[in-house]
């Protein structure tokens, strides 16, 4: 129960972060969304044994965290929360793929471990980019950007409604859970059967609320289309943000910078 509550507070915290006044938050949401997409595509398009080539990409989350005044520890905790998914996707690679790929001095590293590391790095990069997008923009603005970029209106509205009513819904669920806890003794009444009644109850309440919301929309002239009034225009810094980062990502995708640096250093020593 406390977990649901603190999770909700956390969503609220992301919203607070996104309303800060820094150069990052002031950027047009569309360019942040597009840049994040380019970043993610660049990161996931690497070959499965790539590790060194991915490392330069950390500059993007690090730079944005610094500019956007975002709390790194908080974001790291959020990433850890999702880490088990990536971990279990990658963890079988070392068992299945035992061919030795690299020798680090006396230590031989199998292809499985390399690809596992690659998966974890990609996961960290993409999830942190997505989190930074939300924390630096706010979900509502991201949805608006999706809309302006031509995503289907019904999809965008679904997302907005979900975000609007998740709080109301969890509040309602929380009240149900509390009401049950207060009248349950020695574990009686906490079983699956009661739980299934509660889920049903929650569904009915939600349907009733959906009906009332629909009536409220109709009362204000809703005719199947939701209009949003939000003039947005691109400024020079927006375009610069998008072009600058995208160029860098493409560059880092084609040239393995650590490799180049290594070669350069070797050249120099020789």
């Amino acid at each position, binding site marked *: 129960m406390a977990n649901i509550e603190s999770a909700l507070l956390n969503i609220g915290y992301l919203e607070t972060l996104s309303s800060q006044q820094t150069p990052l938050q002031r950027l047009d949401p569309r360019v942040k969304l597009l840049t994040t997409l380019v970043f993610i595509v660049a990161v996931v398009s690497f070959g499965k044994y790539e590790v060194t080539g991915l490392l330069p990409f950390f500059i993007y989350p690090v730079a944005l965290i610094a500019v956007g005044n975002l709390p790194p520890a908080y974001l790291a905790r959020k990433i850890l929360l999702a880490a088990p998914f990536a971990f279990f996707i990658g963890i079988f690679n070392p068992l299945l793929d035992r061919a030795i790929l690299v020798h680090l001095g006396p230590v031989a590293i199998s292809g499985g471990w390399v690809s596992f590391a690659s998966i974890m790095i990609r996961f960290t990069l993409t999830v942190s980019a997505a989190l930074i997008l939300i924390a630096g923009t706010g979900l509502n603005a991201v949805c608006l950007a999706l809309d302006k970029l031509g995503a289907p209106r019904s999809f965008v509205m679904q997302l907005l409604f979900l975000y609007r009513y998740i709080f109301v819904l969890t509040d309602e669920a929380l009240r149900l859970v509390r009401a049950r806890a207060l009248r349950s003794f020695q574990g009686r009444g906490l079983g699956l059967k009661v739980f299934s009644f509660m889920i049903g109850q929650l569904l009915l309440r939600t349907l009733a609320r959906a009906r009332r919301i629909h009536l*409220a929309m109709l009362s204000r002239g*809703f005719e199947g289309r939701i209009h949003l009034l939000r003039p947005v225009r691109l400024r020079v810094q927006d375009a610069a943000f998008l072009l600058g980062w995208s160029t860098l990502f493409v560059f880092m995708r084609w040239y393995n910078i650590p490799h180049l640096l290594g070669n350069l250093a070797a050249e120099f020593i020789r």
Partner: protein
Amino acid sequence: MSHHLVEVKDLKYHYPDGTAALQGVSFLLTHGEAVAIIGANGAGKSTLLLHLNGCLMPQAGEVRIGGLPLNKNTLSHVRRTVGMVFQDPDDQLFMPIVYDDVAFGPLNLGLPPAEVDQLVKDSLARVGASHLQDRPPYRLSGGEKRAVAIASVLAMSPDILVMDEPSAALDPKTRRQLIELLKTFKHTRIIATHDLDLVLDLCSRTIILKDGQVAADGPTLDILQNEELLASSSLEKPLRLQGCPVCRAKSGSAD
């Protein structure tokens, strides 16, 4: 100003489960009147309100708004004329931020953006909520939500305001502010409520609903002092019209 008229003639409504919610309700409201609809739980208040802007269609009888009968063809006109403030502001504030929510109605009416912007700002200022413009609705207090819900209806420039339990779940001070705000409105106002002291402050006329029928219709002061009538409709005198327990005890000890 015939477009402020609200006429309900022998209105009947049965819910699909067979419950007869309204069994022949009739009344006529004129321009600028503030009318309270009171009655026990389940007397049909909410069902009646839902008919006034076409959320429900009459099964028998007629609803006329500003001289026009309520039907499918007049629906959009009626909805523009009658602004409805729902009981739970969470049902009414469905857009991501306050500004969007207040702009929702005017944009649906197809007004040009510059005009909508002005309407939104005016409506929010009218209810004293201009500072909430960029906030998401779930971050507002109960009183703020109520104020914004009213602004979102005002933005449609309705001639008639219909409110379901406007003072429910408000703290006394916020409730007082709401009453003061509603006093300043010139619209025809129809308020369904259990808050009889609010009725005393706001409404010159009162209609009592009982079992889906009009049990009484007349000046508020007359109706709210008729204890027999009130008791038979599961109501009681407004607290301010009842004897003050402190004063009564004092006068008792002096005797």
